[in-house]
């Protein structure tokens, strides 16, 4: 738990960089500080681990006043991720991740195990990446290592300063999704700085909108979208608020569950009975033994194939199918559908199991619900 009470910080020249800011981040939640550049969000963040000292006010971490704690000790128990990553170029990936455990004098075996565990969590096979150097990685991989390094000693609190800001949009999107998945498991208390309101809405449990050193609104993302505190917030959030709300909804919440499905070993005759013209069903998803998605089959494909003999589904299935994961935001799923020109997209769960299907119609219903 992090609590700021009337925190202010003045820069030379008397300009208040941060002016009487108070908020509380409950344990296990993500609070996003967002605002135009120069609004004081980064300064606020850096006061939490005392890289900046507040001029007045108090900051509590787990009810302990941080000004009473040795700053070195404080920082070793707070993970810290910055936009420029700041990996140590002369150290291998493993050594970079091990910095804080090393400072805390963990034994070598424990450090090695922790490094491998984190690399695996970041989707980077330890055997392949452990001994590489930062410059041998892509920007997205480096940022993953930056996050892994911050979590190395398993601190309950993470501070993240525009961690995905320098990445291309596709990589950023992917890292945001990975980040949410990891957070779902680890439940860290996180303060996260960004200038991107879309990122704030997507990632935050709470969003703190700042302007000229002041905290204008501190609320849940839906509240910020639907009840902006003032004109500035409304402007900052933007006119496309309905569309932005789609970021708050996960695909599995709106998909049509139990879509028409056929086993890959089924015969064409079985397919035809499912896809008979009387049922009105023009397509079916093809799945394996564990309901894992294999592809798509359309009625006309079966009809064409059947004319030439007793075809198996396995021979005529179209395996080139785009799917989305169940906890993808509806906004991301929608842009996927638009970019591939799809009227429907299958929704898959763990191990690629087919869970449902998302259609324009289901999205339209959600939009109608938000607007009302």
């Amino acid at each position, binding site marked *: 738990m992090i609590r700021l009470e009337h925190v202010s910080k003045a820069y030379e020249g008397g300009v208040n960089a941060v002016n009487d800011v108070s908020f509380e981040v409950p344990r296990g939640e993500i609070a996003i500080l967002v605002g135009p550049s120069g609004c004081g969000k980064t300064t606020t963040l850096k006061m939490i681990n005392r*890289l900046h000292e507040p001029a007045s006010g108090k900051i509590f971490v787990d009810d302990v006043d941080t000004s009473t704690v040795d700053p070195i000790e404080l*920082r070793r128990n707070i993970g810290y991720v*910055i*936009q420029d990553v*700041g*990996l140590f170029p*002369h150290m291998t990936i493993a050594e970079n991740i091990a910095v804080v455990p090393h*400072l805390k004098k963990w034994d070598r075996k424990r450090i090695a195990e922790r490094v491998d565990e984190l690399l695996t969590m970041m989707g980077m096979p330890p055997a392949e990446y452990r001994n590489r*150097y930062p410059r041998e990685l892509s920007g997205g991989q480096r940022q993953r290592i930056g996050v892994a390094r911050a979590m190395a000693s398993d601190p309950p609190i993470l*501070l993240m300063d525009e961690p995905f800001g320098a990445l291309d949009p596709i990589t950023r999107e992917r890292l945001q999704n990975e980040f949410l998945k990891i957070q779902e498991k680890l439940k860290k208390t996180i303060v996260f700085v960004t200038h991107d309101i879309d990122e704030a809405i997507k990632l935050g449990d709470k969003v703190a909108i700042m302007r000229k050193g002041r905290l204008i609104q501190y609320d849940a993302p839906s509240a910020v979208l639907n009840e902006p505190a003032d004109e500035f917030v409304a402007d900052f959030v933007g006119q496309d608020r309905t569309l932005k709300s789609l970021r708050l909804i996960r695909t599995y919440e709106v998909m049509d569950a139990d879509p028409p499905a056929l086993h890959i070993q089924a015969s064409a005759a079985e397919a035809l009975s499912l896809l008979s013209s009387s049922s009105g069903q023009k397509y079916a998803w093809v799945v394996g033994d564990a309901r894992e998605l294999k592809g798509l089959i359309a009625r006309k494909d079966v009809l064409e194939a059947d004319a030439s003999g007793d075809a198996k589904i396995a021979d005529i299935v179209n395996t080139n199918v785009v799917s989305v994961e169940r906890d993808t935001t509806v906004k991301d799923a929608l842009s996927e559908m638009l970019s591939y020109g799809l009227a429907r997209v299958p929704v898959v769960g763990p191990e690629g199991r087919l869970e449902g299907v998302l259609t324009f119609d289901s999205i339209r219903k959600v939009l109608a619900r938000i607007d009302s």
Partner: protein
Amino acid sequence: MDWGLLWGEIQRLSIQHMILVAVGGGMAIVVGVPAGILISRPAFGRFAQTVVGIASVGQTVPSLAVVGIMMPLLGVGFKPAVFALFVYALLPVVLNTYAGIRNIDPSIIEAGRGMGMTGAQILFKVELPLAFSVIMAGIRTAMVICVGTATFAHLIGGGGLGDLIFLGIALLDMTTLLAGAISAAILAVLVDFLFGRIVRACTPRGIAPASSPEAAK
């Protein structure tokens, strides 16, 4: 020409020459690196510009003049010669140490601070390793300059290969002159090569300038 005698002199004076360089240059390293580190600390930020300014001007003073200045101050012999070399080698060492540390990407230092490294840990585990090649480049330059400058040590009775060179000039004896000049040149090349090797051997793969085959993939 007594080749045996000349060869003996070359050996003796080369060793004397290298001792001058090693002591003078060594002192420059021992003093210059810590001085460069000191002025790179934020607390000495205002100091640094002055020191860097003076050091840059100091480097424009001809080496012969530096040796000449020592005589009225310290007299003649080995010690003033060493001191002149020390002064002359100090500047590139200080400048490169300072520049090497200051040119490190600030986000790397910030990451270190944010993770709870102490100032000393950041210096020894991050700043010095990252500035190593720049500091070594300064030391390498300083040592090579020293080999050349040490030929002037003869003028204030410091010995070294300058003895052969100036004797050859005075006697218009090309053999003696070249024996000294070529030996000094070879020493300079050897010193340069040696330090180049040390830098290459000690630079971690992650920041080595030429990418190794593993780095390419």
